[in-house]
């Protein structure tokens, strides 16, 4: 299966016959680990290094590493002896029911300095013109607005965009890992992985961290290109034009679009019916749901009611954009952890298109202005009616 190959399951199944998935669940954190201390590679020898061909090699830090961790706050003194019942912390596997030769959980849990809240409003919905993804731009840090102009919608490739909610660091990292894996898949199999496949991949990558403090709640919005759809050659032309002015992190995505002039490899029956807009919600606790409307974050209830009220499949693009903006605006009006600006992405068969970032302060003043006009008009109408009555 394609997914297993990507994750390198088959190579590692000899080690863990009972649970294939576990083997792929180590995060490879070379830069972060090496920068903290100058241990040699051999110190990691006790770990599962696996086969270097597997793209998802993940390393669990040594127990001793955690004693030297730079995290000074609220740190419990970590034990060296691995305790099977200790609560796992970042980057360590949860306890698994099979004999291990790897120190699984290194220490008793290190409490976080403050409660990480999922302060955001992101939403995404499908309609006849594609998928709209919208989000606010406030990054909060337990009462402080750490960044009023952060980017919560990250493009993964030309036809897939992911909204992020939860811990921004986790979301950013996992989006990049997902983008890398999707690109590798595409290079190997000469076709793009569907949104559902990407969601499944992300869910499986996040699964080993279930129970840890990792927090990612993402909605993947994409357009799947089926066999019968327009070939990539036309798509590539359009996306290059549209994406020129956008800042694209990875140049490979442009290259990928350029190179796609060949017909996609023949695919199974499943792909025939699965083209068009797709929306998936993936959460780090393992949830993976397909739907037509999702909203995530502390401001999501406020947005949900607006969306429920006005959403319908036959909306025009302008109506859909206006609805998404209004929903985010209402959520930011009531929720303290959402605010500042609105980011809007529209995904069609041609790829994603990003709208200009809009300041919500302007929206507020515009709304006040509209209200004033409505009141004035109502008053004029009443006066006219009264006037006509008096004349009679």
């Amino acid at each position, binding site marked *: 299966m394609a997914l297993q190959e990507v994750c390198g399951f088959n190579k590692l199944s000899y080690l863990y016959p009972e649970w294939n998935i576990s083997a792929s669940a180590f995060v490879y954190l070379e830069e972060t680990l090496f920068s903290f201390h100058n241990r040699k590679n051999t110190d990691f020898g006790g770990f599962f290094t696996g086969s270097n061909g597997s793209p998802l090699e993940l390393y669990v830090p040594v127990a001793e590493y955690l004693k030297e961790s730079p995290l000074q706050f609220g740190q419990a003194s970590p034990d060296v002896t691995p305790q099977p019942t200790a609560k796992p912390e970042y980057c360590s596997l949860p306890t698994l029911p099979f004999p291990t030769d790897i120190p699984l959980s290194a220490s008793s849990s290190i409490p976080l300095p403050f409660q990480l809240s999922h302060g955001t409003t992101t939403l995404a919905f499908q309609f006849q013109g594609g998928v709209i993804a919208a989000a606010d731009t406030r990054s909060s840090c337990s009462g402080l607005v750490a960044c009023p102009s952060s980017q919560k919608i990250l493009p993964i490739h030309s036809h897939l965009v992911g909204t992020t909610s939860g811990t921004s660091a986790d979301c950013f990292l996992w989006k990049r890992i997902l983008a890398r894996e999707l690109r590798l898949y595409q290079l190997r199999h000469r076709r793009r992985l569907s949104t559902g496949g990407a969601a499944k991949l992300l869910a499986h990558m996040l699964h080993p961290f279930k129970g840890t403090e990792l927090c990612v709640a993402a909605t993947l919005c994409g357009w799947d290109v089926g066999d019968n759809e327009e070939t990539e050659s036309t798509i590539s032309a359009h996306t290059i034009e549209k994406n020129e002015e956008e800042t694209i992190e990875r140049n490979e995505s442009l290259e990928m679009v350029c190179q796609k002039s060949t017909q996609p490899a023949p695919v199974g029956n499943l792909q025939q019916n699965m083209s068009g807009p797709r929306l998936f919600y993936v959460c780090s606790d393992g949830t993976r749901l397909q739907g037509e409307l999702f909203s995530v974050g502390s401001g999501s209830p406020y947005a949900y009611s607006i969306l429920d009220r*006005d959403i319908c499949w036959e909306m025009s693009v302008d109506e859909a954009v206006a609805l998404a903006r209004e*929903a985010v605006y209402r959520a930011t*009006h009531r929720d303290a952890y959402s605010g500042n600006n609105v980011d809007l992405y529209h995904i069609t068969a041609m790829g994603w298109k990003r709208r200009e970032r809009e300041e919500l302060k302007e929206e507020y003043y515009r709304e006040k202005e509209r209200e004033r006009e409505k009141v004035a008009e109502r008053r004029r109408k009443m006066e006219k009616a009264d006037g006509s009555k008096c004349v009679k």
Partner: protein
Amino acid sequence: MALLDVCGISDWLKEDGFNAKAASVDKVNHFSFAARTPEFAVPVGVDPAKFLKPLTDNEDGVNGVKLELEHGTTTLAFKFQHGVMVAVDSRASAGSYISSQTCKKVIEINPYLLGTMSGSAADCMYWERVLAKECRIYKLRNKERISVSAASKLLANMMVGYRGMGLSMGSMICGWDKKGPGLYYVDDNAVRLSANMFSTGSGNCYAYGVMDSGYRYDLSVPEAYDLAQRAVFHATHRDAYSGGTVNIYHMQEKGWIKVSHENVEELYHRFAAEKK
């Protein structure tokens, strides 16, 4: 002050809220609010606030038992140029069990005062009936109606005496008095706020989205009915603890009228048909 005398609070305000010696004797089992020597009805021999605090505050509660006093409902009210609109759902839940889909969450205190209920049904019903009694007594004593502000203050003062002891009530007192339409929110923490628009309960966030988006002070009456209905409907659609029927009341100058009660299912089909 007249109000303090009515409440009889000034006598015991200097003392502590809980008197262990006094509580060790079994006293009357109701709150005699305006009597000269008011007594609190509390369980004998135990300090309710101290007993409840570890159960509600800590992460794990006591031995894994944690009490979550949530207000599972959706109620909303807003002031506009023609009075006050009040809309509530009608679902009563006990944990995850729906005990009633036809529960009355608006109590008609008198023809010009309404109180909504969210939180523990028992607490709300009891205390708002006590409030109704006090409002009636006020009218008999002073030969004029009690103002909305005073009525809400009475309720808030009832709550403050039992603060921390596990009451759960989120109520909005709506009425029309000499100053015009009045709307106050009173909480089991004795929070008392006045504003143009409130929504309480677990579905309040959903209702706020729709209400904010359509609210103007100069709404016409049919527009206001529609807005109130839509807001509660959308909350019942998304919130598990709200549902049943949407009951709407309109507080006018001459008193309140009950506008409608519509089943949420019918509303769903009506709104869906409108969209097409």
